[in-house]
């Protein structure tokens, strides 16, 4: 059923692509059905209880063979943690699928978006259901690729392309580290099955444990936007809003959290785990919470809020108590249920007013009442105000940290302090979002304020496109779930406990609660709310001081610097290894081929190289040699181009004759044809060129060229001698094998051809691929109206900071490039 569900989602994506959903009115509802079905199935599978009756065990498991030779198997397993994530993925997925149809109305590429979205959903489900490290990795990479497609949906904008590229580079690099980590883990623990690994004791005592931990953390931190990789997430906000809501709040960014939770029993029993998660999670939590209020774009603000929330979850996973794991589980669900709707609301506001800028929005509660109601509940939940779900989650996590601190753990105090500070800022940016977009009245006659403070009078934002009812229904359903949840904690506790137990590895007996009584934690919580409210009132001061932070400290800027450095390095390498003139390039290639042979030749005795009398050339060969040498000399001495071409042709034909003498007809034919083609081509090109009036070469360069030529000649000479030497002849020759097997297994009498297409067919495959690439390069070079030397400017793809002007220029350039050949044909 698990594999069938993944296939169902994938196939629905293809179907949606084919029916052209932008023309079908009910496409949104149709799209919501498959994820909904998967949700229902998961819940029903879970309600029948686990396989062994223990809460931490799986509800359902499936195994398929994939590539037996590599030991790859498709293992799927549905336990409490997978159920939690699976329900969020398919449930939020259903709401987003409905929403997308209205967000992208009349967009011709809606089908494409659905295809990518459902492919992403399938990868994500596979990721959380996988019970094999390598299966998990395959789906992990699947989410990276599909999220790249989703972020880059409006690919005509340079900013969107930059955001998608940055997100992809970071997550793909993390993916590589993760693969290394998973393989190390699999090899060291002796199993690739996750459910077996987590029950295996003593993994933290392994010598390679630090390496495994660092590699896996790299993968998880890049995916879940932890410091110092947190900046890709706000950059990825260039995605269409349904993708932001789905990928960047509810699902994909939680994949890292999922991985940490999944491997928690195996790896967490070590101080390194505690401190690395605590430090990076804590920094992420604070950076996200403090800087969120600085951004005017609703989506950017929400993105930083998400970064902060992910930091909170990471910090929680640093601890090993039952309470911590329960807090993680509650936090994940609460976050999905308030952050998802907020993103969706941002999309509706954008759709209705044409702006997401907090400076331009005001009084939306009058013009978009239903949307505003959703936003208000969700934002108050984000602020952690009682009695909303966000409050339950916040209490659970503060309780956990406080409990740990009470036991005298320094880590507990650090986490508690950071969480309290972050909690205050959560209140600040939630209130800011609410007040500025939805609540503040806005004066009637005011024009749009342009001051950077945004404090000036703003008129109520006019609505030019009222949202359709199902459009608002999607976030509404999610918020309704989130609102009911705190009062339904009793029925939900099975769900939470199953998830927490499967992280913990034993059954967890702890319940989330709305009311814990008057505790120091509640006091802290109230103080944080008060501090947050005070900061909200002084938010312009906060914004001013945040704006004073230097630009070059931003992650994106640093990353762009690293990228630029790589391009510069590549250019230096290219200049060094290829040179700019034909002479220097051939010198480099020849010498590079020469060196390894010299090293190899040093292994044998020099007197072995002295040839025996029987290899001395006879009369016909001597004549050919003389002919070759003389015509080669004429080639460099003759003053006219035509003369040089002809004598070069003579060199080639003499070599062809050599092949004929030594009975290699295939080589001779090839060489002859190549000679004919080159000579005709050179005549064609060179006779039409203007006469050569360049001054003769400098003495130094001439000497260099002669030396390189001599070296190449000597290389060939010694290679042939070596071929005839005793040492080489004594080694076992492969020719016998080819000669003996050509007819029986190759079915061909022409051994050369059989080697080319059968014995060494793979090599030939590579060669023709290289030929094809060379032809593409030549095509571009020969058909371009002008050829640019590589420079820093042109070699670099557009960055985040490329302006609109840059884009138009590059587009016109490519236009002319493409149109040129067409003109020629006409």
């Amino acid at each position, binding site marked *: 059923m698990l594999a069938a569900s993944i296939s169902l989602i994938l196939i629905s994506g293809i179907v949606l692509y084919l029916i052209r959903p932008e023309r079908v009115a009910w496409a949104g509802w149709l799209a919501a059905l498959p994820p909904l079905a998967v949700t229902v199935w998961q819940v029903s599978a879970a309600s029948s209880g686990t396989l062994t009756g223990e809460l931490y065990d799986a509800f359902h498991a499936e195994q398929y063979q994939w590539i037996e030779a590599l030991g790859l198997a498709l293992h799927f397993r549905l336990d409490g943690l997978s159920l939690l994530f699976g329900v969020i993925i398919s449930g939020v997925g259903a709401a987003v699928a409905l929403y997308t149809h209205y967000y992208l109305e009349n967009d011709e590429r809606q089908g494409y978006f659905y295809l990518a979205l459902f492919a992403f959903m399938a990868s994500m489900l596979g990721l959380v259901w996988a019970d094999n490290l390598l299966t998990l990795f395959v789906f992990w990479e699947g989410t990276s690729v599909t999220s790249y497609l989703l972020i880059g949906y409006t690919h005509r904008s340079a900013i969107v392309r930059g955001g998608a590229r940055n997100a992809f580079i970071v997550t793909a690099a993390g993916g590589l580290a993760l693969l290394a980590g998973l393989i190390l883990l699999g090899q060291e623990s002796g199993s690739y099955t996750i459910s077996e690994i987590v029950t295996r004791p003593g993994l933290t005592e392994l010598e390679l444990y630090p390496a495994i931990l660092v590699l896996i953390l790299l993968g998880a931190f890049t995916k879940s936007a932890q410091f110092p990789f947190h900046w890709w997430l706000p950059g990825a906000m260039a995605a269409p809003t349904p993708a932001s809501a789905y990928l960047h709040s509810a699902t994909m960014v939680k994949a890292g959290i999922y991985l940490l939770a999944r491997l928690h029993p195996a790896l967490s029993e070590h101080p390194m785990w505690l401190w690395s998660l605590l430090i990076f999670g804590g920094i992420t939590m604070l950076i996200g919470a403090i800087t969120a209020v600085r951004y005017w774009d609703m989506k950017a603000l929400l993105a930083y809020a998400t970064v902060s929330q992910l930091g909170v979850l990471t910090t929680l996973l640093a601890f090993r108590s039952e309470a911590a794991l329960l807090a993680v589980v509650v936090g994940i669900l609460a976050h999905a249920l308030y952050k998802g709707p907020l993103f969706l609301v941002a999309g509706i506001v954008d759709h209705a007013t044409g702006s997401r800028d907090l400076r331009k929005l005001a009084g939306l509660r009058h013009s978009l009442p239903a949307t505003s109601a959703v936003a208000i509940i969700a934002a108050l939940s984000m602020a952690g105000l009682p009695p909303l779900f966000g409050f339950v989650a916040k209490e659970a996590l503060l309780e956990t940290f406080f409990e740990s601190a009470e036991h005298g753990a320094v880590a507990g105090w650090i986490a508690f302090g950071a969480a309290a500070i972050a909690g205050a800022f959560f209140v600040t940016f939630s209130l800011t979002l609410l007040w500025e977009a939805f609540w503040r009245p806005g004066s009637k006659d005011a024009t749009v304020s342009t001051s950077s403070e945004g404090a000036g009078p703003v008129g109520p934002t006019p609505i030019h496109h009222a949202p359709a009812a199902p459009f608002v229904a999607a976030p509404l359903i999610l918020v309704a779930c989130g609102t009911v949840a705190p009062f339904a904690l009793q029925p939900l506790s099975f769900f939470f406990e199953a998830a927490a137990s499967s992280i913990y590895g034993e059954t967890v007996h702890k319940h989330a609660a709305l009311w814990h009584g008057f505790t120091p934690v509640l006091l802290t919580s109230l103080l944080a709310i008060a501090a947050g409210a005070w900061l909200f009132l002084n938010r312009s001061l906060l914004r001013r001081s945040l704006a004073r932070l230097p630009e070059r400290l931003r992650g994106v800027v640093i990353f762009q610097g690293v990228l630029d450095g790589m391009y510069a390095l590549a250019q230096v390498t290219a200049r060094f290894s290829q040179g700019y003139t034909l002479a220097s390039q051939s010198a480099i290639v020849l010498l590079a081929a020469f060196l390894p042979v010299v090293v190899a030749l040093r292994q044998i005795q020099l007197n072995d190289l002295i040839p025996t009398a029987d290899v001395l050339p006879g009369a016909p060969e001597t004549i050919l040699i003389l002919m070759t040498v003389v015509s080669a000399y004429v080639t460099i001495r003759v003053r006219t181009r035509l003369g040089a071409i002809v004598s070069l042709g003579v060199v080639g034909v003499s070599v062809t004759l050599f092949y004929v003498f030594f009975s290699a007809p295939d080589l001779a034919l090839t060489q002859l*044809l190549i000679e004919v083609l080159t000579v005709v081509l050179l005549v064609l090109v060179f006779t039409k060129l203007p006469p050569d009036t360049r001054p003769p070469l400098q003495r130094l360069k001439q000497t260099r060229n002669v030396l390189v030529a001599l070296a190449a000649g000597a290389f060939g000479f010694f290679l042939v001698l070596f071929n005839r030497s005793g040492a080489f002849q004594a080694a076992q020759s492969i020719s016998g094998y080819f000669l003996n097997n050509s007819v029986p297994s190759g079915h061909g009498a*022409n051994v050369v051809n*059989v080697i080319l297409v059968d014995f060494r067919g793979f090599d030939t495959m590579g060669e023709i691929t290289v*030929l094809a690439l060379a032809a593409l390069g030549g095509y571009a070079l020969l058909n371009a109206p002008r050829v640019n030397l590589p420079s820093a400017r042109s070699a670099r793809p557009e960055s985040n900071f490329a302006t609109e002007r840059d884009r138009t220029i590059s587009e016109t350039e490519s236009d002319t490039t493409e149109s040129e050949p067409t003109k*020629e044909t006409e």
Partner: protein
Amino acid sequence: MPELYLRLLNRILTPVLLLLAIYLLLRGHNLPGGGFIAGLMAAAAFQLQILSRGHDRVRSAIGPYLNSGIGLGLAVAICAGVVGLFEGTFFKGLWFKLNLPLLGYLELGTPVIFDLGVFLVVVSVATSFLLGLSRVSESAVIIGEGSVSPDLTDDPAFDPMETAGETSREVES
């Protein structure tokens, strides 16, 4: 008047060369020949066409098929390799014996199909270079009437590609 002879030669030789190319391709597995040689032979036939009829007409006739020819050749070669997967490994040769009414006894195998892919790639690559270079050489004449390129390289340019780059750069300036 040399044009006339060239055209006459072209009329006679092009079909001969193309037939020869096919012949070389088909017999390649047992006698000298094969995809690479056959591809070059066919390219020589097209070269003759370019010389006698001008590159424009050749380009309009076969130009659009060249890039697809490269892709098709690669695809054929890969498919020939993939077929082997059914019998064990990638690139394992499979042979079928056919008894055709007219041609008689024929032995056909995936390596032969692979060779066909090589032929397609080689002929398309070589012809596309020939076409491109003959166009560049023509534009070089136009440039050559005005200015003379003074500081090209430090080498007597024997590489047409290099020259192509240089002349084009001049257009820019």
